[in-house]
């Protein structure tokens, strides 16, 4: 059978389903089939120890760190090139330049047209994807083994020598502006984008990665070239190669493709500090919405914080696998939503805690009340030891699943390298999780959670819930009609209200 992701999926399923701790046995109803016996759950078979799988790291003379994970089951090779060239590296006046540059990488190099690149990778039976996020740009690829050199060569060429040709900039700018037009009608996109903007303020993590229509319209070829010239360097990048090669073949292939990329001096990114947490309630009014998209949270800790592990566990209790209080309260008990979760988004210099759900418009106030209550309860009360056990059991127990594929193994190692964390931590992860106590959770929850200074973003039909929010004691909301929303503005509003004009792209010089 052949199945591949398509834009119009119709298969439906239940999202990561985790229930709260109240799993006491349920009283059997009289309708119970009598013939099926009462039984105890069977005991497990003998478990085997699960060490972290082998991997190799070498640094090429030009400074490119190369990670290799071998896997010989299928004749395939995949790779990831990560360059520290994301939103965090953007000049402050150029939001979206990292993402726009990444989009243009495979749209032509100094020696190959965009069409030649697409023809080459497709004919090889391969795939190459480029993009960026808060902290990095990437060039990812997957290919049948016999075309590994070709795919790596293409990846190196597009990372090192993008042409940023005027006609391709024009074409991709038009695409980006139209895509944003669609995104601005997607409540989930808007809720997350507005939330990030408020929590991180003018810090780069608060910018929409894909820019805004205004910022994309203003970007010039010079901006793209300057961004690429400053940040794309082998000594500012990591490469992982995974698959059906020998170690020597993989490192030799990396050297053939990337060895001639010249090292250069790379500056340190600079940026403003995110604002201190403060109470904000913003409604983006989108009349006619079937649901309200809800985001509740606050500024939080960086990935490199020594408290990362206990705080991540606390967030798991609130809304992650193994305990998820929000899922229990909102979905299992009340049927108020399809999915509810809380996540810690921890980056290099800062992070955010965000609880994320959606509900039918009339239930918005009730759902918001329950979420805020759960965040306050996590700060005020020690977690039940069984809840912590549940979260720990999940995290420790799932370790063998997290190392099932060589790509995932590579991601775990890349993550340590990217954030400058100790590689030895990979071996000791289950033990470190196990050592976290109820008191540790209580300490970090009390230290970091600010229930009185939460950022709340609601995208939906304000007429269905705005009055109720006041009655529930949430106070006045900052209510922004969707047509006035400007993610690039400090006030989140366009300077003058009125219908939003589609900005005309500037011609690149």
């Amino acid at each position: 059978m052949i199945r591949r992701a398509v834009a119009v999926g119709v298969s439906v399923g239940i999202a990561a389903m985790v229930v709260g701790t109240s799993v006491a046995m349920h009283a059997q109803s009289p309708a119970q089939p009598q013939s099926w016996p009462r039984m105890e759950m069977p005991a497990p078979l003998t478990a085997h120890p699960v060490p972290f799988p082998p991997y190799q790291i070498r640094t090429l003379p030009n400074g490119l760190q190369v990670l290799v994970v071998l896997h010989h089951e299928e004749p395939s090779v995949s790779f990831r090139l990560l360059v520290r060239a994301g939103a965090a590296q953007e000049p402050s006046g150029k939001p979206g330049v990292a993402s726009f540059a990444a989009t243009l990488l495979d749209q032509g190099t100094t020696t190959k047209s965009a069409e030649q690149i697409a023809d080459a990778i497709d004919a090889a039976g391969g795939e190459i994807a480029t993009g960026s996020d808060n902290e990095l740009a990437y060039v990812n690829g997957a290919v049948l083994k016999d075309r590994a050199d070709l795919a790596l060569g293409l990846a190196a060429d597009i990372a090192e020598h993008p042409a940023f040709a005027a006609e391709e900039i024009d074409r991709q700018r038009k695409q980006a502006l139209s895509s944003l037009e669609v995104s601005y009608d997607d409540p989930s996109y808007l809720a997350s984008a507005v939330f990030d903007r408020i929590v991180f303020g003018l810090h780069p993590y608060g910018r929409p990665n894909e820019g805004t229509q205004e910022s994309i319209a203003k970007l010039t070829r010079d901006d793209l070239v300057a961004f690429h010239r400053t940040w794309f360097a082998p000594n500012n990048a990591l490469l992982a190669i995974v698959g059906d090669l020998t170690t020597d073949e993989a490192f030799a292939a990396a050297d053939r493709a990337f060895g001639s990329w010249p090292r250069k001096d790379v500056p340190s990114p600079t940026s403003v500090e995110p604002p201190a947490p403060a109470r904000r309630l913003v409604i983006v009014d989108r009349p006619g919405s079937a649901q309200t998209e809800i985001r509740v949270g606050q500024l939080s800790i960086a990935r490199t914080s020594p408290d990362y592990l206990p705080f991540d566990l606390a967030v798991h209790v609130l809304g992650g696998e193994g305990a998820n209080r929000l899922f229990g309260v909102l979905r299992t008990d009340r049927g108020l939503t399809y999915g509810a979760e809380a996540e810690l988004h921890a980056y290099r210099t800062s992070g955010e805690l965000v609880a994320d759900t959606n509900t039918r418009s009339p239930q918005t106030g009730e759902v918001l009340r329950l979420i805020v209550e759960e965040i306050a309860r996590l700060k005020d009360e020690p977690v039940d030891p069984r809840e912590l056990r549940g979260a720990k059991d999940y995290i420790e127990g799932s370790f063998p699943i997290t190392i099932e594929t060589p790509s995932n193994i590579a991601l775990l190692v890349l993550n340590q390298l990217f954030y400058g964390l100790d590689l030895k931590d990979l071996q000791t992860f289950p033990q470190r999780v196990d050592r976290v106590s109820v008191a540790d959770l209580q300490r970090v929850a009390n230290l970091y959670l600010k229930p009185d200074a939460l950022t709340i973003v609601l995208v939906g039909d304000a007429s269905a819930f705005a009055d109720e929010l006041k009655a529930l004691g949430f106070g006045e909301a900052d209510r922004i009609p969707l047509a006035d929303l400007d993610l690039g503005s400090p006030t989140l509003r366009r300077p003058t209200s009125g219908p939003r004009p589609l900005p005309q792209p500037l011609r690149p010089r």
Partner: protein
Amino acid sequence: MAVCVSVAAAPTSVPRPTPFDYTMFTLDNGLRAVCLEDHSTPIVHLAVWYHVGSKDEKPGRTGFAHLFEHLMFKGSKNVGPDQHPSLITSIGGQSNAFTDEDTTVFWETVPAQYLPEVLWLEADRMASLDVSDEKFKTEREVVKEERRMRFENVPYGTLSEIIDDKAFSTHPYKHQTIGTMADLDAATIDEVRAFHDTYYVPNDATIALVGDFDTAQARDLITRYLGPVPKGKPVPRDIPAEPPHTAEERDTVTEPWPLPAVVVSYHITYDGHPDSYPLHVLDKILTDGDSSRLYRDLVYEKQMAVAAFGEAKLIENPNLFYAVAIVQPGHKPEDVLQELETTIDRVKTDGVTPDELNRAKRQFARDYVFGRDTDQEKALQLAHAVVIHNDIKTADGEFDLFQNVTAADVQRVARTYFTPESRMLLTILPRAVAPARSGGGK
């Protein structure tokens, strides 16, 4: 490096996926089981496929198969409501389920030592599901939220609902797996019990077990836990066929979406029909990658579309080939629709090039090879072969069928299926700019 690689290697040199070394057997109660050992990681994946999906639903009860899928987590004789997922996460495992037009699939991936537990959990809910009316009603609200979230509150979320509703007259592929709000509201707890008795029986189930186990031991465990589940009655397969379409359909509707969309669709055949293989190849040539015809022509060269995508939807009963273009501002929807239709129709007159054919075959090899990455993906391939093709050998055997497709085959199926009578041309305009009288009938 030169880029003259477009003359791809001959199909014979395409790397082949590693064949599955599986064991298959059937229990006395009719349950079919496929086991595939994979000792690379100490985990096991269990998938239970029930051969029932939204095409088995009756008018007025759309969405029931999927609603029922949710209820399978609401308790059985030895497992409390919502206890199943918490038991799985407490051993570090993952579990979930999905429903499509033809099947409902429940799965768990767990550390290998917990194989007895997952078999026991699946047996318990197959044999003794016990859902209270209160749990049923709460879960129905969850499913309605799912419909709002996935379909109603996102731009283009109801696109497939619109296409299928207009393209089909009779076959239940006309409706979406999620169902309608009205039908969800109309469902009752008695129907839940009847549905379980009819379809959730071992003679309608296939399990695929992949991972770190010994097959002889696994067979013993499967027999011990699932063998005692009582066999059910023969499962009804009374699905109304779609009558042949005799005239092209054209329609224009409005939706509150930001940019217009245009659609071309054709009725095609089913998964496993000899024509399905060249149709898959044709799908790749038209839609897979930046060198595919739809992207190259509509998005890249003419810049008429923000996105252009499509699919030969080959499933258990005949479905559709459809292609969609989201219209780039500044272009007229009718021009984009014309271009989309012309691009697809050109295969009928001009065929496909050797480069395109070779590219598609390597893309198939890639899908095969990368589609066997995880235990879960392997179980999906095996169970699909058993349930949909009723022939497990197709899991590996289709590879050669794809590699042997010729350019003449591709042109022949384009001429066979891409006929004016089978065609639907649909324009979906944003409400703000739609003509006042649009949305009318055909």
